[in-house]
């Protein structure tokens, strides 16, 4: 006896928050769950944008056709893979380097911080249009600059062996500032006393950075990796405005391939299948990152 009320109070404590979650759950259901289920449903049907009244159930045909019948899928996955891995790697390395430099308090470092964050404030389309002019092989500034030092620049956007590089350059240029921002914030949390102690013990800037600062940045690193990988994986505007996938499909990332399937071939079923393959891949990447994070973070509160 007597434990009845306690139990109900405990239940109330445990579930009392539920009503407050309801709005969030509703928003998520409408904004996330519905489109997800709807596109999953679509991916099992043959449906054309031209005639939305006909839905023919085709089972997993869209998926098998995509993976084994569509000649553009695997090359597109490869392009997306290279684009994502290379741009995220460069963003992290450059972002870390720039953040460490900006963290040294010298005159003008505040101004430099603002300048570094500028690309984040511009629209991707605008950035791409500017870069498109810079990259122009005939009248572009980039090749003009190269020619003044005696280098005959390539046709950046018109050469199948350079276009992907050019696209990655723009992606990195735009998004490194995100990495800088996160790393800079994390650097503020690195305790000065530990570093000072290291300096007293004779460690130089390089050693103290490598052995003390960078380990402190690990959680920030994981955040940058996850966010940037997922965003690069589903990038669209930059490549769309720069090359639209050309020349000869050499920059056809998956999101462009999806857009092309949906709005040029009008094949909504297969486009949804591409969307779901992308979603599952993104999910897999996130899980891998999260597992890596869990293993490496020292458990606090245990001895």
């Amino acid at each position, binding site marked *: 006896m007597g434990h009845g009320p306690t139990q109900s109070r405990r239940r109330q404590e445990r579930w009392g928050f539920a009503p407050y979650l309801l709005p969030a759950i509703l928003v998520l259901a409408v904004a996330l769950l519905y489109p997800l289920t709807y596109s999953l449903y679509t991916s099992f049907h043959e449906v054309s944008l*031209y*005639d*939305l009244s006909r839905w023919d159930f085709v089972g997993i045909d869209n998926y098998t056709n995509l993976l084994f019948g569509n000649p553009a899928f695997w090359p597109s996955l490869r392009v997306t893979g290279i684009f994502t891995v290379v741009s995220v790697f460069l963003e992290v390395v450059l972002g870390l380097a720039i953040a460490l430099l900006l963290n040294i308090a010298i005159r003008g470092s505040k101004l430099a911080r603002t300048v570094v964050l500028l690309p984040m404030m511009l629209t991707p389309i605008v950035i791409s249009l500017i870069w498109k002019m810079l990259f122009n092989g005939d009248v572009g500034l980039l090749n003009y600059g190269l020619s003044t030092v005696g280098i005959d620049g390539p046709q950046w956007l018109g050469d*199948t062996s350079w276009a992907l590089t050019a696209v990655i350059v723009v992606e990195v240029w735009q998004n490194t500032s995100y990495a800088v921002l996160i790393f800079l914030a994390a650097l503020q949390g690195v305790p000065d006393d530990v570093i000072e102690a290291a300096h007293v013990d004779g460690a130089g800037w390089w050693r103290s950075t490598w052995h003390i600062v960078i380990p402190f940045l690990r959680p920030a690193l994981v955040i940058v990796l996850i966010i940037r990988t997922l965003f690069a994986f589903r990038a669209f505007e930059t490549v769309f405005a720069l090359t639209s996938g*050309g020349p000869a499909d050499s920059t056809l990332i998956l999101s462009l391939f999806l857009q092309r399937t949906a709005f040029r071939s009008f094949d909504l079923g297969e486009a949804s299948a591409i969307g779901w393959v992308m979603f599952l891949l993104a999910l897999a990447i996130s899980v891998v990152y999260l597992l890596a994070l869990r293993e490496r973070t020292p458990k606090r509160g245990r001895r």
Partner: protein
Amino acid sequence: MSDSPSARRRAITALSAIGIVALAVSGCAPSSEPAPDPSDLAGQTIRMTVVQAGFRPAMEPAIARFTEETGIKVELVGYGGDQIQEKTQLEVSSRSSNIDVYALDGPPYMATMHDALEPLQPYVDRDGVDLDVYIPSMLEMGRYPSDFTQKEAGYKSGTGEVLGLPVRIGPHILHYRKDIFEQFGLEAPKTLDELREQAKTITEGTNGEVYGVALEGAQSLYIVLQWYDILWSFGADVFDETLTKATLDDPRAVEATEYFVNLYQDGYAPPSTPSADLDAAVALLQQGSAAMYPEYFPRHAVLNDPEASKTAGQWIAAPIPGNDGNPGVAVVTGWSLGVNKYSEHKDAAWELIKFLTSPEVQLSMAVENGNAPTVASVYEDAKYQELVPAAAVALEAAQSSKARSGLPGILEIEQTILAFELNAALVGDKTPAQAMKDAQQRITDVLK
């Protein structure tokens, strides 16, 4: 009491019945009714799609005048030239009433959008609009079915339903530089072979300062349109007459593609050609980097615009040259305006179309805003002839050229398959023969 569920249900049923009746009434042919009182339309706002570059600035002043005269407000929804088709298709497929007036680029649009367009004949009859003022091929492009779409055997030109009235014409013509041609003692090329020779002379004679010809080689619709001129002038085509079979296995298709690709690979087109889209090509020409440009007639005004172009005043025009003793067959694209069947402002939408396609406004837009007119008599206007000497060439081209094909898979065929294959051939990833073989195979798959 009246709040009981059954009463409410009855009310809803009644209301929907009224709605259906109202819909049926508003869907009736307007010819059976008197024209609406113009003052009823004042204050309405209608939305019209346009291509952002060229098209929009050509229409804007006339549209402002329309609003002044009628009180009907017009919002323009602008898209890039290579996106407007898919954006329009999205609106059409969702049966949205968002847009009242659709800009329609000929048969490819008609093929997939004709169901969503209001038949205009009743409006034409009601208001006594004379359809004979238009260049016949331009009017035909606004019909479905038409000479250029899939149709039943025995279709007679000019008998398809009128779904759009022509507002802006665009046959391909050869824009070329008067000064450069004079410098080298050349005259406009009569054949494609001659064009290549001249391109060579100019490129070599200027040490590559000025290239012979500018092409839009990027992987997009524009490379396909420029290739059509060559393909058709070689006597080949993408489809047979019924638009049900691919015919790129014709050896002439390979020859035409070789000719096209070689203009670039032999060095007579600028090195940036494989990434050149419309804007890049125009920028290059305005800078003076190329001497010939087979493109859309309305580009002429842009090239000769003293505010934008260093080469303004030097551009004159000739027809697309022929091949093998035959005259050239250029692609003609041209914009019609149609009324969205699901629009809530059909009468106001029609008023705008009637206004913009009228002979009087076609003349003023041609003279004042550089629009390329669809009304034949405008081309005889002395002021217009003096202002745009290329107009006579354009009129002739419009009458002898060929429109893009109107069939449901055309967007995929042109912009995914042909754009890729041609661009791949241009950059040397494939031989022209291989590109045509692959295109033939892939188009055949789409047509199945």
